[in-house]
């Protein structure tokens, strides 16, 4: 077995989802290669070379990879794809953009959102918004897949650095062009790796009142999530969305406020250790999955909520 992991990073450091993907890779083989395509990304390579399990780093440090387009990143990966039995990327929008295009060009299946590796050709993945789990077996010569980060721990660091090798690439891409990216900088922890998340839904009513959620989150050093309805209504940006088609999260504590608990939302939170729901409707489906449910009007209990936080030292 030889496994290639396509790294996701911001030219400064690896994403935590890549660290989880490396852990998944080490289950398959002791020989894991990390492909780091970026621009001015030597610091990523250096820190990545000290991640346990990584035996080699292949890097392409070229302008076109500053924000990589699938057209280029897939062409680059194709140069080395034949050396591997498995090619993995995190099941993020980055990995999901790249992996299927690569798979089609290699004429193999792609396996999305792997949550468990049974052996080198058998994997488990959720379907139907996580309401069923499929075990699939691949006979393809190379298994190409995305790894659900919340299902695997982050890979630890090691002392002896892995060698870094450069891969030349000249972009032939005349198909697509990167124009801009609008990211929402925040001091808060990332949703996908946060220990505590507070999410708000349509029940918050407007963007102004949603800020209350953000304020509580800051006191708890928590990440902020949202339901699709809250995003659609413009309370918060799209990258806050948690669920089947948003982010899948697995914090120790997930607090859902003013969220009804549609299956599409639940799909993203089921792996949380403790789920708390605050909702004024006693029949809201969120209470069926909540470990602790409080039937209340959020705005009415807010003063008490803030008091308790103060008492607990937050």
């Amino acid at each position, binding site marked *: 077995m030889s496994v290639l992991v396509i790294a996701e990073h911001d030219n400064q450091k690896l994403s935590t989802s890549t660290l989880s993907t490396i852990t998944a890779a080490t289950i398959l083989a002791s020989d894991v290669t990390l492909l780091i395509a970026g621009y001015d990304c030597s610091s990523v390579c250096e820190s990545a070379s000290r991640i346990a399990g990584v035996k080699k780093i292949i890097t392409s440090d070229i302008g076109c990879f500053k924000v990589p387009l699938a057209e280029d990143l897939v062409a680059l990966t194709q140069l080395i794809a034949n050396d591997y039995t498995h090619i993995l990327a995190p099941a993020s929008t980055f990995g999901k953009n790249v992996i299927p295009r690569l798979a089609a060009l290699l004429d193999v299946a*792609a396996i999305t959102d792997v949550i468990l590796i049974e052996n080198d050709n058998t994997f488990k993945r959720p379907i139907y918004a996580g309401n069923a789990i499929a*075990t699939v077996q691949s006979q393809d010569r190379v298994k190409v897949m995305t790894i659900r980060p919340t299902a695997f721990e982050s890979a630890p660091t090691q002392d002896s650095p892995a060698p870094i090798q450069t891969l030349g690439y000249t972009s032939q891409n005349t198909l697509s062009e990167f*124009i801009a990216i*609008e990211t929402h900088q925040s001091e808060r922890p990332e949703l996908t790796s946060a220990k505590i998340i507070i999410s708000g839904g349509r029940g918050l009513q407007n963007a102004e009142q949603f800020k209350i959620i953000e304020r509580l989150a800051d006191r708890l050093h928590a990440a902020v999530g949202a339901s699709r309805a809250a995003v659609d209504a413009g309370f918060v940006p799209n990258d806050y969305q948690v669920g089947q088609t948003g982010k899948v999260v697995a914090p120790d*504590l997930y607090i859902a406020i003013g969220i009804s608990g549609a299956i599409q939302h639940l799909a993203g939170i089921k792996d949380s250790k403790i789920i708390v729901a605050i909702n004024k409707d006693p029949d809201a489906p969120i209470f069926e999955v909540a470990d602790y449910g409080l039937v209340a009007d959020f705005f009415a209990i807010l003063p008490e909520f803030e008091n308790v936080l103060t008492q607990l030292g937050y």
Partner: protein
Amino acid sequence: MKVLVAIKRVIDYHTKIRVKADGSGVETRNVKMAMNPFDEIALEAAIRLKEAGQASEVIVVSCGTSECQETLRAGLAMGADRAILIETSEELQPLAVAKLLNAVVNKESPQLVFLGKQAIDDDANQTGQMLAGLLNWAQGTFASNIIINNDKIEVEREVDGGLEKVSLKLPAIVTADLRLNEPRFPSLPNIMKAKQKPLEVISASSLNIDIKPRLTVLKIESPPIRKQGVKVNTINELFNKLHVTEKVL
């Protein structure tokens, strides 16, 4: 400009699915079926291009059993001009669908192909990217806004960190995310009109494409169920549980 939209027939998203006891799959008998929600959004985008005078024809394509004709008729009722069914009763995985769509694209030569970003049954999120690869076209996945500008399309993409903008040379593949638009409900007259619109059926076997599943599904099972939770009466009680019992705060 011709626009093709790939639409999949799936279990209606309001339905609570049931995993079969023998582990062979999910119960689809007597279950309400509908167009994949993302494909409705994809189709709405195509129809709006036509209404804006930027597209000349909108063709909906589905791959699957003859029952997909119902889904295609729903697409025609929304406003597509004609429909194509690639008929097969084989199990279709994304790579096979991409290959079948590739054949349709070669025949129809559209300038733009819209797909949903993911089908809500297999949650694969693969077919559009695969089709783009097979055609060697540009891909704009997870689109929340599109602007056509001569021979290019600018796509705003919903990515994990926020919003990304790319410019793609046409012909191109675009996969629709939730916020691209709000799909319309077909009006009764349009539902009637849809019955007269052309729907071509092509048998998948006539295309000589290898559509055999690449992945063997060994088992479909229910996920582990979370233990029944409790209701608390006050915030104080809630935080006491979180702090003292669960130690998560």
